[in-house]
C-alpha cells in the first residue's frame, strides 16, 4: 500500500516541469504538496495517478490502490446526488453510499440533480465520491476549492478518518487544512534547463 516516488521527472506539454522528486507515502500518513501556481503540482498528481507517463524515474504503488480527485468533479448534472454516488460505487465494486452521504452532509440533497447544486455542494459531492471508491491512496488536487469553513473541517475529518483506517493521502493545496501531515514544497524541484549555459538563468513559470 505504500506509495513510493523515486527520482521522478515529469513534463507538461513536452516541457519538464519538476525533476528529482523523491518521497514515500506510508499507510496512515498524509503528504501535503505546496508550491506556487504553475509549478507543476497538478502534473505531478496526474503522473502519480497513472494518467500520464513520467519522463524519468518511477512511481511504485500497488495496482488499483489509487483514487484520484481532480480540479473537476466528474459529476453528471442530470443524475441525482445518490445516482452519481451509486454509479461510482458500482464502478469500484463497493457497497453502500450511506457512509459517503453522512461524511459530507449530503443527506438532505440525495434526490437533487447534481446540476442544481451550488459550487460548494458540488465539490462536497465530488469528495464524497472518494469514500465510495474504497481505495486506500487518495490523490487530491486542491480539494477544498469553493468550500466554506465548516465544509473544510468536514473534509479534514474525512481525511483523518481515512488515515486512521490505514489509508493515505497526497494533497495539493494552497490553504491550511489543519491536518497533522508532512508538507512537501515542490518549488525547489523545479526543472532546471539541461545545459547550464547562461541566458537561461532567468527561467520562470513560462520557461523563457
Amino acid at each position, binding site marked *: 500500500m505504500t506509495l513510493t516516488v523515486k527520482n521522478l521527472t515529469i513534463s507538461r506539454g513536452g516541457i519538464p516541469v519538476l525533476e528529482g522528486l523523491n518521497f514515500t507515502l506510508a499507510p496512515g500518513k498524509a503528504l501535503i504538496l505546496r508550491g506556487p501556481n504553475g509549478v507543476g503540482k497538478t502534473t505531478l498528481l496526474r503522473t502519480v495517478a497513472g*494518467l*500520464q507517463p513520467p519522463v524519468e524515474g518511477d512511481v511504485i504503488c500497488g495496482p488499483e490502490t489509487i*483514487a484520484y480527485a481532480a480540479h473537476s*468533479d*466528474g459529476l453528471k448534472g*442530470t443524475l441525482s446526488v445518490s*445516482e452519481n454516488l451509486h454509479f*461510482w460505487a458500482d464502478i469500484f465494486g463497493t457497497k453502500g453510499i450511506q457512509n459517503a452521504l453522512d461524511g459530507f452532509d449530503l443527506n438532505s440533497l440525495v434526490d437533487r440533480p447534481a446540476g442544481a447544486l451550488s459550487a460548494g455542494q458540488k465539490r462536497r459531492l465530488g469528495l464524497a465520491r472518494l469514500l465510495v471508491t474504497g481505495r486506500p491512496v487518495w490523490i487530491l488536487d486542491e480539494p477544498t476549492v469553493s468550500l466554506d469553513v465548516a465544509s473544510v473541517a468536514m473534509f479534514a475529518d474525512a481525511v483523518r478518518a481515512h488515515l486512521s483506517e490505514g489509508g493515505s493521502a497526497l494533497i495539493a493545496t494552497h490553504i491550511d487544512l489543519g491536518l497533522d501531515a508532512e508538507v512537501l514544497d515542490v518549488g525547489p524541484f523545479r526543472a532546471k534547463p539541461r545545459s547550464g549555459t547562461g541566458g537561461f538563468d532567468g527561467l520562470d513559470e513560462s520557461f523563457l
Partner: protein
Amino acid sequence: MIALLIRDMKLAMRAGGGFGLGLSFFLIVTVLVPFGVGPESTLLAKIAPGILWLGALLACLLSLDRIFALDWEDGSLDLLATSPLPMEGVVTVKATAHWLTTGLPLCLASPLFGLLLSLPAEGYQWLVASLVLGTPALSVIGTFGAALTVGLKRGGLLMSLLVLPLYVPTLIFGAEVARRGAEGLATTTPLLMLAGITAGTIALLPFASALVLRVNLR
C-alpha cells in the same frame, strides 16, 4: 461495466428524449430529401435504400461527438481511467450504449421511413436486415472517431471528417443489400461482407479506441 451502461442509458434518456432524438433526426433527413429532390415517387423509390442508409449513418454521426465529450469535459473520463474498469471495457460499453440509443431505434423505425420514400414492398425486410447487421459497425467505428477527437474543442466536424471515410465500406455494402433487396436481386454476397465488417470491427476496433483514448487523456 453494467453500471456504466445503465448510467449512459439513463443520461441519454434524461437529456430530453434519448431514443427519440436520433430517430427524429433520421425522420427529418428522410422528410427533407423529397423537398430537395422533388416529390416524384418513382424517383424517390429508386434512391430510397441509399438515402435511408445515408440517413441512418448521419443520425449515428450526429450523436457520436458526445460519446466521450461530456465525460471528458466534466472530468469523469479521468476518473474512469483510474477506476478498476479496463479502458477497453469503457470503450465497448460506450459503443453499446450508443447503439442501443441510436442504432436499434433506427432499425425498428426504418420501415416507416421507407414508406415515406415509397420503398418497394420487397425492400423492407432487406432494409431492416442490413441495418441490424450494419449499425453496430457504425457505432463501433464512431466510438473510435470520438476517442480520437476527444478533448478537441469543435471536435464535432473534425470527427465527421475522420469517421465518414471509415464508414464507406459499411455504407456501400449496407446500401447494396437494401438496394438489391428492393429490386428483388440476390443479396447474399453483400450481406456476408457486411456481417464480416461488423464482426471484424467489433472484435478489433475497441483496442484501438482504448489506446487512442489513453493517449488523449495524458
